[in-house]
């Protein structure tokens, strides 16, 4: 008897084609799902890194704007406020002062007014009437205007970018999990070869597992 003839009579080799088809289908499904998972995972990872980059950009711009306003512009504005208040209070005192010293007090008030006139124009906050508030100035309003000058930085939302990365990465690992039924199909395919008497059941179960893998991948792709 030839080998081929022996194989035909051997139950282990009956319908072995269908087992091969099952294994090939499982491999193809696993490869396609794995490829999609790798693409999504890579995209998720890139998005995470983008979130960090955006956070660095936004953070630096916040720090620099706060430093500029509170260390450069606000102190100048405060100096203006100090001179103005001193000028007003000294002027007020001059009006009610003893006539002997009234001129001297008035001179002191003029000194503050003189300084005020010099430093007022140098202050970006104090020279802008919109920022005046009580005896001082609205520094927060000035900071908001300064931030608005760089909308490409103040408008960054790294949290949203990170959330997008989380979604993509989670979807990618869910797709990797969807290859487990394809692995199960391999198990059934191997058992079909090892247990020829139950081959039919194992093959059915194997194709069922492949179908589950495909269905799971589609559901993850559409719903997740």
């Amino acid at each position, binding site marked *: 008897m030839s*080998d081929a003839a022996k194989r035909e009579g051997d139950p282990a080799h009956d319908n072995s084609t269908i087992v091969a088809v099952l294994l090939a289908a499982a491999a193809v499904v696993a490869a396609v799902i794995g490829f999609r998972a790798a693409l999504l995972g890579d995209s998720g990872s890139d998005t995470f890194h983008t979130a960090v980059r955006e956070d660095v950009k936004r*953070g630096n711009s916040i720090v620099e704007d706060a430093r500029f306003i509170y260390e450069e512009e606000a102190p100048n504005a405060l100096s203006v406020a100090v001179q103005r208040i001193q000028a007003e*209070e000294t002027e007020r005192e001059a009006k009610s002062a003893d006539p002997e010293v009234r001129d001297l007090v008035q001179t002191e008030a003029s000194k503050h007014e003189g300084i005020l006139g010099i430093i007022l124009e140098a202050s970006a906050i104090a020279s802008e009437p919109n920022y005046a508030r009580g005896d001082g100035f609205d520094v927060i309003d000035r900071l*908001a205007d300064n931030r608005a000058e760089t909308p490409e930085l103040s408008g960054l939302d790294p949290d949203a970018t990170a959330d997008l990365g989380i979604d993509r990465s989670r979807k*990618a690992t869910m797709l990797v999990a969807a290859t487990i039924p394809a692995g199960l199909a391999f*198990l059934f395919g191997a058992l079909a070869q090892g247990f020829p008497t139950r081959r039919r059941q194992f093959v059915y179960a194997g194709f069922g597992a492949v179908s589950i893998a495909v269905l799971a991948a589609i559901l993850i792709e559409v719903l997740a």
Partner: protein
Amino acid sequence: MSPVDVETAFPESPMSPRFRRRLAILVGLTALLIPVLSWVEAENDRQEEQSFVRGSRGALDIFVRIATTSPREQFAADALRQSLAVGAEGVSRVAGSESGLSLTYALALQEASARAERRIQKAGEQMSEAPGEDSGLDPATAEALDSGTAELIGLVAAQNAAIDDAGRYGTRQERGLYALGLAAIAASLLGLAGLMGESRAGRTALTSATVALVVAVGMGASGYVF
């Protein structure tokens, strides 16, 4: 020359049904184990990266909050100092004056200075106050400017926890990857066992593959236990 049938070109390796069943089960289990370990590796890699990103962004957030709040607080302190200096100047002038005209003059200026001190203090407080809800600032800047010490302590704890999480997930991921390698070795050994059949070498390959698979499962699971 007659054509060669690849199916029958080589004689099939001799193996008993028992050996065949054992081989089939191990091949199947290996095929199932590989995607499971791949998922373990991928999931923990994702969690590790996510934790690292959370930790990095947390560290940045802490730095930004400190670096943003400090100039505001420094400005508030400077404004207070400036107001006190104005008040102190008036008092010093009185203390340094003799009686008569100079004292009258000093007292007049001290009155003005005392009132100015209070107004400057108020102006400084107002200029250095934290942004309100309707400040017009973008939320990130408003949040950074309004950070307090208690908040920073919470952020530091969360940042440390994220880095610890990254370490834990990293260990699981590395062990999953190692287990995946062992599963691949087991698959190769099973292939060899299939080729060599139920010979001494074939049995050795089958036993080695079994051991490799058991170790792979243990290694993959160990990251969740230790």
